[in-house]
């Protein structure tokens, strides 16, 4: 679907991580002549592009929500490991109330420990020393935050392309209305 454009300089990035860039239209007349579209086909093409962008946007937003839920979880884990480490020197056991089932809590006494078990997903749990656990969790947290940043940049790029496409649709439509007005005006001039 890539249309070759030579004179209408699209100063925009042509694509980003699989998302096609929206070509900026300098002049509607030139755009229509170059692509060979008539007004309706151009509008149809642009509308379809808009739909595709919306689909990608929904996918990215779902990923964003996932990451935004994951990050506080990792931070909570880090908090717990830090608390266990802090208690280590004191010789006291850490008493906690934890949820056994919905609404039912039980008490646990956690003695001095050098290791914790981390849930890695896919029904796998591994035992780590407190230091290793902290390092692993921090790495995961950094990765998650970095992924989120890239994702947010992708979303921004996408929204820009959506805006450009919407503006182009409006301009093509307006150009068409303008052309119709000119055509209506000229026949009446000939009659007089």
């Amino acid at each position: 679907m890539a249309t070759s454009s030579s004179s209408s300089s699209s100063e925009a990035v042509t694509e980003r991580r699989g998302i096609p860039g929206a070509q900026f239209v300098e002049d509607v007349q030139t755009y229509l002549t170059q692509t060979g579209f008539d007004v309706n086909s151009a509008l149809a093409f642009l509308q379809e592009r808009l739909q595709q962008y919306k689909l990608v946007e929904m996918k990215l937003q779902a990923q964003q929500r996932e990451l935004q839920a994951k990050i506080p979880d990792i931070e909570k884990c880090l908090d717990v490991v830090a608390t266990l480490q802090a208690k280590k020197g004191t010789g006291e056991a850490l008493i906690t109330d934890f949820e056994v089932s919905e609404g039912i809590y039980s008490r646990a006494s956690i003695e001095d420990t050098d290791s914790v078990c981390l849930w890695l997903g896919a029904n796998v749990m591994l035992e780590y020393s407190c230091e290793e656990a902290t390092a692993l969790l921090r790495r995961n947290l950094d990765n998650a935050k970095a992924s989120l940043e890239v994702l947010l940049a992708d979303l921004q790029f996408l929204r820009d392309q959506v805006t450009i496409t919407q503006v182009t649709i409006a301009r093509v439509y307006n150009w068409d209305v303008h052309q119709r007005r000119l055509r209506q005006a000229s026949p009446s001039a000939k009659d007089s």
Partner: protein
Amino acid sequence: MQQGGGSETEVTWEDQQNINKFGRLNNRFHELEDEIKIAKESNDNLEDAGNELILTDEEVVRFQIGEVFAHVPKEEVENRIEALKEVTCKNLEKLEEEKESILAQMAELKQILYGKFKDSINLEED
């Protein structure tokens, strides 16, 4: 965006970039409003927790760490709550500042864009 009545105002790349920027700022503005709401709620909760703490006469308080409630001496809980309140307060301030800055930038862009396009463009919330 409202469709104009067939006017022939040219849209330059710079105009397009301004429109894009306005869109981005508007999105960020709404995100910020949500974040500010959450931060304010969090602050209120911490306030309430602090007040409850003063009223209680128990020595050991169940303090939520992660998914569990650890038995923590009252003093330590007070300190933790104070620390959390400071973090939330600072965060709230930062968010409010960003919001002000965004509103100012949006107002400026509105002036520029309405100046050039007048009725052909609509930058208000629907």
